[in-house]
């Protein structure tokens, strides 16, 4: 008697479970979600080793940051109008430093792995903006008083 009941309930439940498995497989791949592409036996892909993307890049970032220290100190004691090359180097270094900082934020918070559309859009928006900023800084340092002098005058305005 009890065997018959067991058999009927299991028979009713099993196709439902099988259907659930199939439904899970058809559930969409969501970037950053729990479902991965590929199988469990696929190895993790690694980018090819490259010093320009690794140690050289890292060292360049640190040298750029460290270089901003004497540049900023020099900007405090000199006038950018009298030393336009110093002003120009400071402007370009600040823009590069800012670009690296913004790019790290995009890599950290809008990685293409999780944001396949908005991530690359933001990266290219940043690149476009940086080019525009470089042109703007060049124009301002060439046709106007330059960044250092502007900050000094605004500060004492």
């Amino acid at each position, binding site marked *: 008697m009890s065997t018959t009941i067991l058999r009927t309930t299991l028979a009713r439940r099993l196709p439902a479970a099988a259907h659930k498995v199939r439904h899970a497989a058809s559930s969409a791949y969501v970037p950053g979600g729990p*479902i991965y592409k590929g*199988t469990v036996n696929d190895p993790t892909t690694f980018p090819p080793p490259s010093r320009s993307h690794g140690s050289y890049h890292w060292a360049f970032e640190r040298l750029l940051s460290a270089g901003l220290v004497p540049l900023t100190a020099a900007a405090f004691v000199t006038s950018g109008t009298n030393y336009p090359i110093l002003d120009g180097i400071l402007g370009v270094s*600040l823009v590069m430093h*800012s670009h690296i900082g913004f790019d790290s934020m995009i890599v950290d918070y809008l990685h293409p792995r999780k944001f396949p559309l908005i991530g690359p859009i933001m990266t290219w928006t940043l690149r476009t903006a940086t080019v525009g900023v470089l042109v703007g800084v060049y*124009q301002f340092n060439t046709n106007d008083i330059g960044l250092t002098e*502007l900050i000094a005058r605004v500060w004492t305005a």
Partner: protein
Amino acid sequence: MMSTRALGLGSSLRKVALTPSLARNRLVVRNTVARRSIQTESLPPSSAVEILNKQRLNRPSSPHFTIYQPQLTWLGSIANRATGGALSALLYGFSIAYLVAPGTFDSTHVVEFVAGMPDAIKYAGKAILAAPFAFHSLNGLRHLAWDMNKFMTVKGAYATGYAVLAGTAVSTVALMLM
């Protein structure tokens, strides 16, 4: 007989002797019932991924950073990014504004605009600019020191952290008085 009594096995042995063996053995009963009722389904090897993905959907999310106690170590790090981002946004904003409308954002107009502000706003503006600049500069030196493998202890992180905070306060006041 002496030994079974000493071990306390008397009642168990008596039960074994008196009950029929098949009904006594619960394991046998369970297996017989199960063998009759369980239905199996043939699945191809590729369905392993489907079963895995179904299980992956049931997995809990890893705890977010909000569960962590605010500490100087990571607050200083995120403040470094926030202050740097704010200062960079100002640089980007001004440079693009000058590129788009050089007649509006030239130095004469900018200086005139700031000069027309009341003193309270000027000091507030100076504080808003000087504090992130001082913090990001000093904390940047702290990060460069870490990159050279200096102060790489919990004590070193806290000592330099408090030094940066004190230096930021002093520098901000000094810059405001400039």
